[in-house]
């Protein structure tokens, strides 16, 4: 059983990342459920998708304290969702800060020491400059696939199967770019 919570900002490609993991589960012959939220929250708001892989899955939604790994596409979103982790869970964070509107307008302040706080809270915290790596691979939009490359390494997923899952989920013309992004994530975590 593996519970993966993917947290990000609307528009960052969390849905695609969850679908790649769903495909991976299918290729491995496991049961899988995904949960996502569409609609209003997607407009630049916090978004969370849930991926559960195992022999038999009931709830599509992961509960607080139930995630094996939280993949956060942004530091503040990592802080917002870190309590979903099990005590020995792994936190994988894209080392990037995106200001939410209350911070842009000055109504709230983006926490200054968010990375330190995360490392203190979660023993197994990994930061990766996924956005940078994605740009290197050819497009910042492949940040999600960089994160999956890193996840693959951390959890010793079957790399070839993961790449086949990526292949099944991205448009053919962006496949090379995404595979390059995947490799960078795998190497740099």
């Amino acid at each position, binding site marked *: 059983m593996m519970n993966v919570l993917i947290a990000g900002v609307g528009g960052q490609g969390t849905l695609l990342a969850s679908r790649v993991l769903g495909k991976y589960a299918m290729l491995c012959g496991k049961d899988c459920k995904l949960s996502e939220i*569409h*609609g*209003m929250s997607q407009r630049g708001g*916090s978004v969370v998708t849930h991926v559960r892989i195992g022999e038999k899955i009931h709830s599509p939604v992961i509960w*607080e304290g139930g995630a094996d790994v939280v993949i956060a596409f942004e530091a503040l979103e990592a802080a917002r969702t870190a*309590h979903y*982790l099990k005590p020995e869970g792994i936190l994988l964070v894209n080392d990037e800060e995106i200001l939410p509107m209350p911070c842009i307008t000055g109504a709230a302040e983006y926490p200054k020491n968010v990375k330190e706080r995360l490392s203190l809270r979660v023993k197994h915290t990994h930061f990766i400059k996924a956005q940078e790596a994605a740009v290197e691979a050819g497009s910042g939009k492949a940040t999600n696939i960089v994160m999956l490359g890193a996840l693959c390494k951390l959890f010793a997923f079957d790399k070839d199967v993961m790449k086949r899952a990526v292949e099944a989920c991205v448009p053919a013309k962006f496949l090379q770019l995404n595979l390059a992004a995947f490799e960078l994530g795998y190497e740099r975590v």
Partner: protein
Amino acid sequence: MKELMLTNQAIARGAYEAGVRVLSAYPGTPSTEIAENFAKLDGVYAEWAPNEKVAVEVAIGASVAGARAMACMKHVGLNVAADPLFTVAYTGVGGGLVIVVADDPGMHSSQNEQDSRYYARSAHVPMLEPSDANEAKEFVKIAYELSEKFDTPVLIRETTRVAHSHGFVDLQDRAEVELKKYEKAPQKYVMMPANAIKRHVVVEERDNALSAYVNDMAINREELTDKNEVGIVCSGAVYQYVKEALPNANVFKIGTAYPLPMSALKAFSTKVKEVIVIEELEPYIEDAMKAAGIACHGKDLFSLQGEISVLKIMEKFGGASAPEAEKVPARPPVMCAGCPHRGVFYVLNKLKLTVNGDIGCYTLGAVPPLSAVDTCVCMGASVGMAHGFKKATDGASNNVAVIGDSTFLHSGVTGLINAVYNESGITLIILDNSTTGMTGHQQHPATGKNLMGAPAPVVLLDELCKACGVKDLQIVDAYDVKAVEKAVKAATASKEVSVIIAQRPCALLDKSSKPKMQVQNCRNCGVCMRLGCPAISVGENGVKIDASQCTGCEVCANVCPFGALSLVKEG
């Protein structure tokens, strides 16, 4: 064959396998993907109707004509469609008729948390409630069998966590269901009093027959483990949470939310120590069980607000407690960079107008720093409420109505007819972004395309307004802030009904690379920050533009008093 599917896609697949020929729907989260996925399948007809009432009427027509038919909507859409629902319960069906309704506990993308199960009970229409994707597909097929066996429309209820979760689905072939021959039967289909009185008798007989029948349906089932323990009664997503949180519990899984399998529930209650009903929203099952004389717990343990979760169940049964969350600034949804609504709300805020808002992305005009929207109730309410403001204040109120193009066609146009007819002199601003934005860019009658992807005749919004009797009509470019301001001032000064159509396609529709804004000699005066554009933030030496988000809409340049913002010259 197995496929990982979104439940909404599985419902579309179920309709396909059940031989459904006609599907009509209006987009609404979390139901939208049913129609979108059905339209992709071979040999079927699917359409976006202008609203849910029309969608249900289309499905009724197709059913009476002999086809299996489906209509889909979100929970509040069923309010709009309630009129035909209550009477099609009397007429019954020709071909099988299923209406899918998607509730939104927790209000992820809705204005209320209503519980649609009461519609089933109130209209005397059976309602099935699946708990995941594969079940959803199977329940659709069962629903069509029930519909034709008992001559009744059937409701399928899902909730957000069911609708928007993926699971593995077993695919089967499409059943070849013949178009039944239509035969004139006014005593069944013409619901005037003399006929309806007789049909009401039929409805009650059918209800009684169904109430007995559901007790033996396999989709209502006991999962007994230990008779000395409590028994949980649940349905839908909550069943999955219960199985996760209490894997060894006695469970009664309800598949028919209406009629409830009351004899089977009574039998279950005698086999367990005590009965606990776990259900989201209202105590619908609990009240019915208590009325039937079955002692049970329910809302004394769980809230009727928001969603149930695995953790909430574990907490009640002593298995876990919630880890403490970090306190961090919220990240609310915002209008996208380049959103054509932004400049309009900037103007309305600047002119200190009271804004009667409506349902769509532009409801976000209520959020700081735009803070422009004063009211938002339901689809189309902006126009009627603006009229009410005027009538209450003898025309003195300083208010305007703001509505999107799709919402205007859904139910705003009737409000406009009322304003013209009853002479309130309102100002109505139609934010025409050429799409149904919030639900993910669906076509509508004014976009020139239909759900099947084919070109379609266009309902012209300006001509429609004129036909309603509007004489004062202006069309402006939504990005041209000065033109918008001028138009709003003229319209609000006018005593007659005025309509402004602010045009610009949704910024997300055009994915081409565009020139970005640049900043020169910024004085940090803060005017552009009042736009709430996610691509603009304050830096030490003036504002900064996030080029990855900026669409070059130039609204910021239009409001900058010092000419500090301009488009980067090409080349």
